[in-house]
């Protein structure tokens, strides 16, 4: 399932923080990318559809007491968490390789 597309990666990363509804995922992606990536609703639900079909994301009932009960909530499945972990490890190895060749900062800015 690797490498993941940027949209898939952002959605999986957002859901790694817990179950969310569509708009919360959009806001979270915007926040985690410092307003660099702005997913549209069509792209978001197309991505969620693909992720659900491949078993990486599943729909949940959502937390109780939510203001709008008609919202649909999504969460990472075990396979989704494994795929995300594998992708992060792949990217990490790639970044380390790039740094070994003198590209990019030697240490993480974080």
């Amino acid at each position: 399932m690797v490498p993941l597309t940027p949209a898939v990666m952002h959605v999986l990363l957002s859901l790694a923080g817990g179950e969310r509804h569509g708009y919360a995922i959009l806001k979270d992606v915007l926040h985690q990318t410092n307003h660099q990536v702005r997913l549209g609703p069509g792209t978001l639900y197309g991505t969620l559809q693909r992720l659900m079909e491949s078993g990486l994301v599943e729909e949940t009932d959502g937390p109780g007491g939510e203001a709008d009960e008609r919202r649909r909530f999504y969460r990472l499945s075990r396979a989704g968490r494994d795929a995300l972990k594998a992708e992060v490890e792949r990217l990490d190895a790639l970044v380390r390789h790039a740094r070994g060749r003198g590209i990019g900062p030697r240490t993480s800015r974080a």
Partner: protein
Amino acid sequence: MRSPASVDARCCHAALFLCPPAFRREFSEEILRVFDEARQEAQLSAGGSGLWLFRARMIADLAITIARQWLRTGWPVMASLAIVYPLTAASALASLWRRLPFRMPRATADSDLLMLELLAAVVLLIVAATIILTLWFTRPLLYRRRR
């Protein structure tokens, strides 16, 4: 309580009708809800100019979504095959026909038999195409039932 649908939301709703039916049934309500919320936020945060930028983004997003979703259904491939396959088959048969020393039978009985064979071949092709198309387009239903 939700506010009455804006013109933008109505346009988005209309654009969603261009999506494949399975995707529309599954996600149109959610897409509209997210669209509405994002629109309100764009209007509150950036006013009129922000709203125009938001509209441009949404048009691009919906256009890409519609194209992607139709590609996912396999319809464009099927339509291309439906056009290319008969044309290729007909031209291949025509070129083969020219090389063969075959003449149409003169006797009426032979001619009738040939017509019957052609008719049977056409009927078989239609039956095969119907089975293939039915299996192809019921995939989403089968998937949903499995879930």
